[in-house]
């Protein structure tokens, strides 16, 4: 199993550009999450999904959109990038069942908006 994979690893965007951060998991997890981590801070939840076609906002959703058309993939879309979106983005997945609630994280995507 590859676990959770994310692409790209690093990207520089200009203000106003758009991009999609890719996330794929091969563990057949039904739950997937997107977090952002600002320098020196903990992780904050952007969006999450409980299965194909079902998504909801987390703590900091503004400026982002998601879709979930398959169990495996959960892309994060940035529209009109702003410097405040400079961060490291982590995708995670899990089951949500007693004893199986651990989240598995991808390696992260570092985004710099200039």
């Amino acid at each position, binding site marked *: 199993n590859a676990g959770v994979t994310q692409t790209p690893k690093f990207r520089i965007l200009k203000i106003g550009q758009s991009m999609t951060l890719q996330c794929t998991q091969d563990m057949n997890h039904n739950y997937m*999450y997107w977090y952002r981590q600002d320098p*020196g801070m903990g992780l904050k*939840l952007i969006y999450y999904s409980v299965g194909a076609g079902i998504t909801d906002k987390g703590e900091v959703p503004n400026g982002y959109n998601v879709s979930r058309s398959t169990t495996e993939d959960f892309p994060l879309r940035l529209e009109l990038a702003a410097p405040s979106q400079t961060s490291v983005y982590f995708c995670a997945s899990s089951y949500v069942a007693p004893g199986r609630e651990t989240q598995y*994280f991808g390696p992260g995507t570092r985004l710099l908006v200039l």
Partner: protein
Amino acid sequence: AQTVTQSQPEMSVQEAETVTLSCTYDTSESDYYLFWYKQPPSRQMILVIRQEAYKQQNATENRFSVNFQKAAKSFSLKISDSQLGDAAMYFCAYRSPTDSWGKLQFGAGTQVVVTP
């Protein structure tokens, strides 16, 4: 909403010694899940240990153990026989059982520095 507090921005430990990281949380729930995640320079988030609040026994994973004090709402992580590879940022996280979405609430993290 629950809050998770890690009051130590950085802790330094010598190789082979022991270091304890503190974590406190605020909740009105009686059952919940607590986690410690490790984030090395590679930035990958790696699960270190998990604890279920209804279990009184402290969780242990090799050199990592927790001191779970439910009444005090404290969940400290002890790293024994510290190794250079333990150098990383460590995050404490809380998960409510009533949250059917499985969302985690993270603390701000503690940077562990291991010196030879």
